């Protein structure tokens, strides 16, 4: 819209500008208020998420079953042993707490627990993968 058209349009005549300006300012103030309310809510959500790390990811046992394919090579057969650096049987996971399995995978990834195979496997997993696999093993035993 050109300046001429604006001036010739009664609705946009310069005489109406103060009113339009007030309306726009009101709308602007409302938007600002809404925005600050929204950011307060987001901040609260962020704080609660930070305070409740255990509830971070809900695992899906069905998705976990498919993702646990690589795990079954050792954890699915009774009595499979780790041969290095010490010889012992790989732990049973059926019926283990999901939160503990996730914590174990994270500590392998972070190098707080030492096992080359588990470190390599855990490095490939996202947090969602870990939650799904943990939910699968934690669910009913067979």
């Amino acid at each position, binding site marked *: 819209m050109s300046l001429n058209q604006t001036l010739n349009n009664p609705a946009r005549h310069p005489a109406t500008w103060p009113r339009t300006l007030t309306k726009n300012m009101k709308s602007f103030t409302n938007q600002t208020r809404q925005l600050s309310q929204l950011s307060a809510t987001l901040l609260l959500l962020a704080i609660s998420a930070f305070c409740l790390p*255990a509830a971070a990811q809900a695992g899906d046992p069905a998705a976990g079953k498919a993702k646990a394919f690589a795990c*079954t090579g050792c*954890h*699915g*057969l*009774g009595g499979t042993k780790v041969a290095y650096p*010490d*010889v*012992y*049987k*790989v*732990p*049973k*996971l*059926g*019926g*283990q*707490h*999901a*939160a*503990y399995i996730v*914590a*174990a995978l994270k*500590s392998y990834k972070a190098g*707080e*627990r*030492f096992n080359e195979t588990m470190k390599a496997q855990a490095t490939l997993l996202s947090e969602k993968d870990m939650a799904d696999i943990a939910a*699968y*093993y934690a669910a009913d*035993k*067979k």
Partner: protein
Amino acid sequence: MMRTILLTALLASFACGANATAMPKGDPVKGKADSTTCAACHGEDGNSKSAEFPRLAGQHADYLYNALSQYKSKQRKNAIMGGFAATLSRQQMADLAAFYASQKGLDHKY
């Protein structure tokens, strides 16, 4: 001749390595007696109520023994378990492992 000596040395070093970490025979009855501290977090029979602490009931004894050894050597890092494992002898670790392995809980899953 040289080869035989080297081979013998190699075999001996393997044997020593195995002996250093060999698990003593565990006594589940003694293990149960020693498990009162553990019960606070892991449950009386190793079926812990809190998801934060692993279930131990039914777990392989040699895995549990290895976990305790790694806590003791600080190879596996955990503020709570590191402190407890430091107070245990190898025989006590084997006894505890035998006790939890004999309880009903964990299972394999196919």
